[in-house]
């Protein structure tokens, strides 16, 4: 992820581009699966040498299948990198103020010829999640609550082997809060895109958004909230 401009502050600073390759995570998963298979295969060989033939054969077969799955995943990741350039999201400003409606330009180019398509619609979702951690004895529990789920439209076209589209993003002021990262309490924003025909391996890609503690004055459709209840009762009741 390439970050330019101010990463966090009260005032949005500059334009911002996020680039991401779908294959990188898939490649890591593939390598992980293949490694597990290789270790299991080693275990099977030890079993065979120790005379446990039935165990060794069964375990060895399982290990070979696991290795194949890992290599298949790795191959698909390589295909992704061979066929597609990284996806690019061009934000007009970064971070994103509360109440803002930035238009995000989304681009993905293919390295191989693909047919033109004048209307491509990508399913998008914007989520804001509260995540809290608390200790119970020696365990640390985590709870999450999705406080924003919006589905903005991402419509574009494929021409000259490149998809170009515009995402109408909307950061609400009546739900969620600016990005926050404390030790036990976090608020994070994500944009996920189901790339469909714009990928070979992965249907959904997720991008971290940075929402800053600023309010877009152009957004005047909101009023101050009623006072919160006194005391701490609502959470602990």
């Amino acid at each position, binding site marked *: 992820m390439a970050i330019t401009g101010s990463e966090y502050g009260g005032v949005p600073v500059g334009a911002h581009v996020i680039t991401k390759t779908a294959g990188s995570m898939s490649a890591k998963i593939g390598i992980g699966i293949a490694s597990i298979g290789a270790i299991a295969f080693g275990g099977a060989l030890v079993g065979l040498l120790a005379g446990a033939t039935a165990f060794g054969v069964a375990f060895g077969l399982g290990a070979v299948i696991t290795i194949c799955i890992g290599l298949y995943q790795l191959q698909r990741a390589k295909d992704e990198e061979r066929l597609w350039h990284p996806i690019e999201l061009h934000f007009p400003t970064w971070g994103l103020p509360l109440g803002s409606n930035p238009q995000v330009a989304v681009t993905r180019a293919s390295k191989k010829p693909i047919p033109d398509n004048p209307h491509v619609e990508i399913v998008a979702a914007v989520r804001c999640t509260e995540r*809290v951690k608390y200790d119970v004895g020696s365990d640390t529990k985590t709870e999450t609550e999705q406080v924003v789920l919006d589905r903005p439209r991402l419509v574009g076209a494929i021409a000259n082997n490149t998809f170009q589209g515009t995402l109408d993003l909307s950061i609400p002021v009546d739900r969620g809060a600016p990005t926050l990262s404390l030790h036990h309490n976090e608020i994070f924003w994500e944009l996920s895109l189901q790339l469909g025909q714009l990928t070979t391996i992965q249907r959904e890609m997720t991008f971290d958004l940075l929402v800053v503690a600023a*309010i877009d004055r152009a957004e005047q459709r909101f009023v*101050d909230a009623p006072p919160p209840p006194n005391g701490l009762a609502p959470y602990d009741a």
Partner: protein
Amino acid sequence: MRSQDPLLSYTLATEVAEVGSGFHISISRSPADGETNDKTFGKARSVRVELRYETDGRGDRDSGKFGSYEVPLDRFGMGSADLFVEIPPDAPISYDGVLMRIQYVLRIRTDLQISIDHGIDLDVVVAPTGGAGTYRYPHPLTSGTI
């Protein structure tokens, strides 16, 4: 529970301030009219002011403070100052969410020698940049028409 300093008076210009801005507060410690029995006489050394936040809710608490201002008092425990308590631009805002809440207070403590300090916590709201005229309570706002 701490008792409030009977000789301390303060004026807070506004209870809502934006991140990157701050709170104006005037502090004054002087004998009140008719005060005849000041138990803190000769003990009060200074008045400290700091802005603190604390989370509350399902998760364990996180807290922090911004700035720490000390107003020195004379040997009679008297003094005054106008302070501007700054809020950093990356400070969390006051928030009333689903799993968590973030609350701010301006903490004023009178430092007393060999005694429990007197003090008071003033509830304040830290709003997003550009939201000082809109917010009176913690974020989020409510759908409606201004």
